């Protein structure tokens, strides 16, 4: 009798390893590059294109490039002439800013970096104060640091301003801390606004109050036509974003207002500026703003460009903020109303803190756009980062190195924009986990 085939396994077996071709590097290659005939063909086509593009690029940028030297004669090889960047580096960073005053710009950068770092330290006890300094104090300090010059300060004016603005700031801080007088009292802001308006009507800064005027010059004047390079680009982008934020919030509130006149004014403002290119706005700023001003009042070119950029950016900012306002559920408005809060308190204490938090990624994206668009000021004759590279490339001693200039400035812009877009994506992910 032949032995019967064993039909039942008596012992357990080791699990088989997956086929070699589906795991590890080979498996990855098969899955991602050679999964079908079409994919295989695509892979080889792309590899061939990369082979055509990358080696010459590397040779041009690194292997055959000239790195050291101080003049154009140092560039004898086939590749890029990085000596060009090296020689013009200071100009590309600071424009024509006087060399002995460069420390002022660097101190400005340092202050900003320090405040920025403090702001991002979690649980830092004086974060609100740092934020307040960044948005109110820093612009004033930085502007004087960069521009300098003689300050004529009327003590009367200074006192009026100090009382009004200081009052508003104290009121704001008190609200944040929940101080009793801020909770119990009525608004307070209308008083400040009325005071400021009255002060402006009486004559504002223009009133000399000669006997009470002190005049001092801590730092020598640096005219704005000397500003340039990356520094100018940063100034334009920063002023644009800081100026457009409050304007944009007001416009967005106005657009969602129930008052038809206010709503129409805001819709008109937003749609007009969003419908025209930034260049025409800058042309308007440089050609028409001087006509708008009474005789004798003169803005310099940079200020006009800044005003144009801020107006333009505020329209886009308004749309971003509006998105946030629309995302706040009606219940929040109704709850605030039920507590007896008026319009401004509903907005300021309940709606805006939530809405602005949602739209931070949108604001960062706006900032990236503004940062890239700030290059357009070179068309009205300001020498920003790109404008300076363009000027350097058309210098009679350095003709023919335009591409090196574009690659360098492009790399600078790319670092900023890519970094910010990554940050905004990170924020978006972090904010989304809430629900």
């Amino acid at each position, binding site marked *: 009798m032949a032995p019967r085939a064993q039909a039942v396994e008596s012992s357990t077996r080791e699990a088989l390893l997956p086929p070699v071709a589906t795991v590890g590097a080979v498996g990855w290659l098969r899955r*991602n590059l050679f999964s079908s005939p079409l994919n295989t063909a695509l892979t080889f086509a792309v590899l061939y294109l990369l082979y055509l593009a990358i080696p010459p690029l590397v040779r041009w940028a690194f292997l055959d490039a000239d790195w050291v030297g101080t003049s154009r004669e140092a560039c004898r090889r086939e590749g890029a002439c990085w000596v060009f960047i090296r020689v013009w580096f200071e100009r590309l960073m600071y424009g024509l800013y006087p060399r002995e005053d460069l420390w002022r710009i660097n101190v400005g950068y340092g202050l900003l970096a320090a405040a920025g770092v403090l702001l991002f330290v979690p649980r830092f006890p004086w974060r609100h104060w740092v934020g307040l300094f960044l948005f109110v104090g820093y612009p004033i300090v930085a502007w004087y640091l960069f521009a300098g010059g003689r300050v004529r300060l009327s003590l009367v004016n200074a006192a009026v301003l100090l009382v009004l603005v200081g009052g508003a700031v104290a009121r704001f801080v008190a609200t944040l801390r929940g101080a009793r007088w801020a909770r119990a009292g009525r608004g307070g802001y209308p008083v400040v606004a009325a005071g400021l308006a009255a002060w402006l009507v009486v004559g504002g800064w223009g009133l000399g109050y000669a006997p009470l005027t002190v005049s001092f010059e801590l730092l020598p004047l640096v005219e704005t036509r000397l500003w340039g390079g990356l520094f100018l680009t940063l100034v334009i982008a920063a002023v644009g974003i800081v100026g457009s934020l409050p304007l944009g919030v007001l416009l967005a509130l106005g657009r969602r207002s129930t008052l038809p006149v206010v709503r129409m004014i805001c819709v008109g403002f937003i749609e007009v500026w969003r419908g025209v290119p930034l260049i*025409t706005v800058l*042309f308007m700023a440089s050609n028409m703003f001087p*006509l708008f001003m009474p005789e004798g009042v003169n803005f310099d070119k940079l200020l006009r460009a800044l005003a144009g950029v801020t107006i333009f950016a505020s329209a886009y900012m308004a749309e971003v903020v509006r998105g946030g306002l629309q995302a706040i559920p009606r219940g929040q408005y109704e709850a605030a109303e039920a507590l007896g809060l008026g319009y401004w308190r509903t907005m300021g204490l309940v709606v805006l803190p939530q809405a602005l938090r949602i739209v931070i990624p949108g604001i960062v994206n706006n900032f990236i756009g503004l940062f890239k668009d700030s290059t357009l000021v070179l068309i009205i004759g300001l020498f920003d980062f790109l404008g300076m590279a363009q000027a350097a490339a058309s210098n009679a001693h350095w003709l023919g190195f335009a591409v090196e200039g574009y690659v360098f400035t492009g790399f600078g812009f790319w670092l900023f*924009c890519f970094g910010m877009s990554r940050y905004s994506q990170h924020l978006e992910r972090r904010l989304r986990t809430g629900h």
Partner: protein
Amino acid sequence: MSRDPVERPPLPSVWQSPRVRALAFQGLALALLLGFGAFIVGNTVANLSKQGIASGFGFMGTTAGFGISMSLIEYAEEHSYFRVFIVGLLNTLLVSAIGIVLATLLGFVLGIMRLSPNWLVAKVAAVYVEVVRNLPLLLQIFFWYFGILRQLPGPRQSVALFDSVFLNNRGLFTPEPVPEPGFAAIPGALLVAVVVSLGLARWARRRRDRTGQPFHTVYVALGLLIGLPMLAAAAAGFPLRWEYPALEGFNFVGGMELIPELVALVVALSTYTAAFIGEIVRAGILGVNRGQIEAAQAVGLRRGPMLRLVVLPQALRIIIPPLTSQYLNLTKNSSLAAAIAYPDLVLVFAGTVLMQTGQAVEIICITMAVYLTLSLTISLFMNWYNRGIALVER
């Protein structure tokens, strides 16, 4: 002792009535706006009269007296400023139209590449998008114009493609189709084919709704659209001649000439906008619910009909609104032409004409109004199209 009268709440003052407050606030806003407007207009009028500039649009009839490097209509120095305006406007429209078409094509290719199962293809597209999107457009225009096109060799050493397309530092030269007598038959036949195809599609849809029988409209329509004009061309003896550019002396003669400014601007605008469109397309396709694809597979649709009938219509619904704003952006960005001296509206009108006449207010207002009209027109058209494909809630 009399009882205390019932304590009544004091009447609210007029200022606490919401209606009065609203009216007062709006009145204030309007007054501020009008006051500001009056301030500006007053100053402008005073400044203009001081500079001796007469306001008004009379200057539009004056002779321009300067040449323009490229014009779609006949233009000479003796023509008026109004003619300059039209030339600039047409050049702006030309560059925007070419840019929109190329950017859409490249953008859809990029969006699909980013979703490719092939890792290398997806990565190449991702790197392209991240590099191009994060560089200022003006920098890219400069790069293409000053960095590439201006550095090209002269006409004698042109980069040639099939001996008919030439690229050199004077521009891009391509063959130009020249219609000959009898050419009208071809567009006529095309028109007939379009009308017949539309009728056919209607009939096929009705029949499918009634009987459930499908009809391959696409193939028949394609055959009509290609076949009829070909037949007409053959009947008329191919009344179309290609004029090739030929090197004569120091430059090319004949054919179509695209100035380098136009080439640089079109390349920069379309590659830049394509990066944004690619992301929009990717988001649109990813935005279609996975269940939709599985349901399409479950009812037995093959890949082609599934994409055409299920995925694409839903993806387009997500894609269209942001695509519209990209088209608007491209049109507005075409104004960067001024930086490389492509004769668009901003360069010749808001630049040269403004410089010559000093009519800043009128010229800037006209330029802005033109862009505003373009923006509104494009968004109206796209809104109309969007309404057509929007979800109909039942």
